[in-house]
Each structure stands twice: as C-alpha cells, then as structure tokens.
C-alpha cells in the first residue's frame, strides 16, 4: 500500500465530489489543449499566409532601399543570391519596383508597379492563385497587368479594361503605354490591395528603362529551412545587402504572434488555476472529513511529512486522472478542429488582421508541446493546490483529532 494506492482508494469514498472535480480538471485541460491548438493554428495560418502569399520568409534589398524605395537602389549582385537559394533548394523570386499613374477612362490613381517573373512567382508564392477574377500574368510579356483589389475598384477596372500607364523612367524620360487588365487579386494586405500593379519583368524594363536593376529577391522555403539558417545563408551570399526576415518586414504580424502566444498562456493559466481551486476544495473537504483518521495515523507514528505526502499523492492521482481524460478529450477535440475546423464564414467572408488575409475556416494544429505543457502544468497545479489542505492535516493535534465526535 503506497501513498498513490491509498490516495486512489480515498478518492472513491465520495464518488460524486471526486467525479465533479475530475470533470473540472478534465474539461480545463481539454479546453486549454484545444484552444492552444486553435490559437497555434491561427498563428501558423497567419504566418504562412503572410509569408507564402507574397512576402516570403526572407527578403534581400540594397542598403537603404526600404527607407526610400528609389528605383536606383538596386541589388548589386542578385544572381549570387538566386544561385545561393537554388543550391539550398529554396525558391526565390526577383522583383523590380517603380511608381507611376494609372488611368481607366476618367478614373486615375497612383500605383506601385511590380516587375515580376511569372514563373518564379508561381514557383515561390501563392499570389498567382490568389485571384478574384481573371488570370495571372502569362510567361511571355504581353502588356498585361494584374491589379490589387481596391485599386481595381477605384479605377472601376474590369478584366479586359485598357489602362493608360504613365511613369517616370530611370533615364529621366517619361514612359507611357497601354496595358490590359488580365486579373484582379483577392485581398492580399492593405498596401497591395490599394496600389499594386503587377506586370511582366520584360514589360517593366521597357516601361521604366530600368536595365538589369532588381530591387528585391524574396525567398520562401515554406518552413523547410529555419529562419536563422536562411538569413545566415544570405549573409554569406550577399554580405553587403540588407537582409530582413518576415518578422522584421511585418512587425505587426510578428507582434500579433507574440501577443496571441502571451494571451493563450494567460487564458490557459486562469483555466488551470480555476481547476486547481477545484482540487483544493475537494482536498480540503476530504481532509476535513477525515480528521479523526489523521489523528489515529499520527498516534500510530505517522510523521507530518508522511501525512502531507498522502494528501498530495491523493491530489496527484486526482489531477493525473483528470489530465489523462482531459488529454484524450483535448486531442479528440483538436483532431476535429484540425481536420474540419471552425467555419467562420457565417461571421465574415475573408477578413484580415494586421494587413494579412485569413481563410474563414479556422483550423487547429496539434503538436507535442501543446499536449505536454497543459498536462504537466495541470499536474503541478493540482499538487500545489493540495499542499494547503495537506499542511492543515499534518498540523492536526492528534488528541483533539481522535476525540472528535
């Protein structure tokens, strides 16, 4: 008969009370696991949306380009960067940027032109599939343009609309030309929605007279290469350029991830503490009912530590059982949320947070840490919660305890 067996038997002296506490521990653990999974799913979704759509995990620019977006601040040796990425099997897309005006009929707006290589964009990002209408740019340059959602709306442009383009070219001349709208993007973050006009790289070079200037190389391994390895690789390939990870490029997304992380822990801890209170209450009632027994055990020579150990073991058995049941329930819930997810489309179509678009089906992730951390915390809290009743029992005066009516 060890303390755990003894605790197990004592727990079932009051089946209802133990059952209720067990349910509380079980539900708290399960809810924590499932919500942790949902939050983690949301964050991974946010991060992969943020990176896979267009930003990538790491971007390389010339020093100072991010500060003023000058067409003259181009990368020194973009080929070395592309070569380094290729060697590590990391997809990369070179981009050229320039500013100008676009007009459809009487409507006009400022735009940021993206000179992209459609094949590289397709291989590296999801943007080419992220169209609300029409098609992405074709592999050959044909004076087609893909517009951001809000830009298209403000120009009242449709697929097939003719667009007049006026830009300041790199050689100081005024470039102008006529483009045809081939596609309109879905929501892809505020700045893209408002001003992106994507054109073929060859068209861009002609329009802006920009030669072989490349302003950005965006790399995306889709999580295959850790962020620090990726930046390390680039700092060797392009030591004089500016290398930025998505966390630096999208600090609002990074902050949001950190904030949600903190939030889930606070939320979870409150849940676990509530369950811990339940355990404490149960153990208080259980020890109170057994005062006479503790008195007898002490008279027989049980030490205060022995009694604390017995009470703590009983709470441990209770918390462990609740945690095991909670883990089963939590895993089942997380599995459902991973496979089926929560459909939020009844509340909103697509929505965006911090400029990042979200899918209306919210899915959870499952990882060992989100099972282990709540489970271990619940066990610790359960045992800690029992220490107060345990100390009360250990300090009982045996004479008073035994002669209690």
């Amino acid at each position, binding site marked *: 008969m060890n303390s755990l067996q003894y605790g197990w038997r*004592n727990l079932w002296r009051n089946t209802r009370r133990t059952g209720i506490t067990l349910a509380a521990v079980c539900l708290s653990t399960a809810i924590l696991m499932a919500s942790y999974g949902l939050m983690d799913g949301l964050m991974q979704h946010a991060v992969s949306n943020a990176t896979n759509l267009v930003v990538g995990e790491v971007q390389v620019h010339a020093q100072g380009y991010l500060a003023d977006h000058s067409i003259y601040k181009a990368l020194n040796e973009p080929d070395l960067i592309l070569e380094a990425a290729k060697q590590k099997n990391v997809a990369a897309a070179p981009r050229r940027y320039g500013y100008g005006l676009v007009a459809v009929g009487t409507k006009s707006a400022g735009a940021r032109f993206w000179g992209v290589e459609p094949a590289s964009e397709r291989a590296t990002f999801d943007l080419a599939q992220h169209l609300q209408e029409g098609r992405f740019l074709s592999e050959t340059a044909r004076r087609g343009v893909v517009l951001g959602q809000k830009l298209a709306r403000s120009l009242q442009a449709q697929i097939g609309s003719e667009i007049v383009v006026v830009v300041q070219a790199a050689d100081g001349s005024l470039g102008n030309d006529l483009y045809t709208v081939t596609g309109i993007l879905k929501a892809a973050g505020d700045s893209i929605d408002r001003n992106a006009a994507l054109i073929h790289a060859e068209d861009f070079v002609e329009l802006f007279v920009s030669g072989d200037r490349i302003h950005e190389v965006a790399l995306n391994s889709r999580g295959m290469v850790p962020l620090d390895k990726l930046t390390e690789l680039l700092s060797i390939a392009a030591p004089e350029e500016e290398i930025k990870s998505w966390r630096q490029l999208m600090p609002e997304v990074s902050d949001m991830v950190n904030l949600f992380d903190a939030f889930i822990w606070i939320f979870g801890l409150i849940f676990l503490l509530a369950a811990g209170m339940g355990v404490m209450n149960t153990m208080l009632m259980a020890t109170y009912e057994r005062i006479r027994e503790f008195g007898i*055990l002490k*008279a027989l*020579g049980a030490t205060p530590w*022995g009694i604390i150990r017995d009470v703590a073991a009983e709470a441990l058995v209770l918390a462990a059982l609740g945690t095991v049941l909670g883990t089963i329930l939590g895993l089942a819930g997380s599995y459902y949320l991973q496979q089926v997810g929560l459909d939020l489309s009844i509340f909103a179509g697509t929505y965006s947070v911090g400029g990042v678009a979200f899918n209306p089906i919210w899915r959870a992730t499952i990882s060992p840490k989100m099972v282990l951390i709540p489970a271990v915390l619940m066990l610790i809290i359960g045992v800690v919660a029992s220490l107060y009743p345990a100390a009360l029992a250990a300090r009982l005066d045996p004479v008073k305890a035994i002669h209690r009516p």
Partner: protein
Amino acid sequence: MATIVNLQEVTKDYGQGQALTHALRGVNLIIEAGEFTAMAGPSGSGKSTLLNIIGGLDRPTSGRVLVDGREIKDLSNTELGLLRRDRLGFIFQSYNLIPVLTALENAEYVLMLQGVPTAERRARVREVLAEVGLEGLEDRYPRQLSGGQQQRVAIARAIVSEPALVLADEPTANVDSKTGKALLDLMHRLNEEKGATFFFSTHEEAVMKRARRLLQLEDGIIRNNGATADIRNTE
C-alpha cells in the same frame, strides 16, 4: 523488571480562567514490563488525559513523565512520533481503523512506517491476525467486519510491532459484554504468552476484575495504587 512508565507529580490543566479544568492533579505511577494494568474511574476523571500523556500525544502541565526511559518533555514532536511508532501501541475506543484499508493493511501500518520489508511485514501480520482469531478475514475492509473483529484488528495493529507498552483507552466500551470479554481474554493471553505490557482504561466492572493490577482514578488523582492480584483471585 524494567520500568516502562514512571510518572512523578504529573498535572494537566485545560483551559484558563473560568474554564480552567484540572484534569490531572499530581499523578505518581510506575508501570513495569509485563504488567496487565487497568485504570478505572468515572467519566471525566482523567483516564484519557493520562493515557494521552503517557503516549506522548499530549504534554503535561507539570511533573516528570518517563516512558521507556526517556523524558517526554525533552523530546520534539518528531521524536515523540518515533517513540510512538517504535515503542508504543495504541488501541482506541472505536473507529480505530482506516476504512479504505483492509484488515491486513490496517494491521501492517506501523510496520510499514518502520520500513519493514513487504514480505517480512506480511508474514508477521498474518501470524498476528491469526493469533487474534482473524485468519481468513485479512482482506476484508473494516465495514465488512463486526465491531469485535474491528477491535481485534486494532489489537493486532498495536502488538504486531512488539512495542514496550500497549495503551488502550476503553477498548471494550463500544462492543457488547460478551465481545468485550473475548477481547479482554485475547489481551490477557497476549500478555501472558507474548509478554506484551498492557495499560488500559475502563469503567466496566467485568473488565476491572480481569486486571492483575487495578488503579482507581478520581478527579485526576490515583486513589488506589496497589497490585490487585487479590481482586483477580476473587473471580
């Protein structure tokens, strides 16, 4: 013969002011190894208080208490616990047993505290349970045993560690007189055959008669301190 208990002018007060009670008013008592001594006295005369003090469960207000050669007031609570565990056995009036433990588990509790290896512990407990007439009932829980059988488990638990002294506070008070007599026979036999020293309180005539030595406690003072073999002989 070794002296197991030596009390000198022991007093015990409870409460203070108006509520001050002198539970013991100067008790002198010597108990030698092998005795089978009863303490009689009306309810409230201080029997439980005296047993608790000898058992190191309570501390006297004044006077000297030597148990197994050790001065109680020099011992810490932990040392008192060890003294109880290793040198004393306890039997209480009723509800002596832990309800979630079987007869065997209840009886082996002290040996478990002492760290006696499982196999040896089990063997000793089975032997003692057989001696107290509980063979075959080892795996029953207290609720599956009669009051008399429960007290037998308590007696087994008290003697299995072969303590220097077994203290019993009205061990037969909650069983019928026939069962009480059987329990007394058992303790008596354990005293004679195993040399276990018993000191118990009672207020039943029948029990007093079985004692080899009978003390009379009244208002916290021992009135009759004599050996009572003669009383036994009148049986």
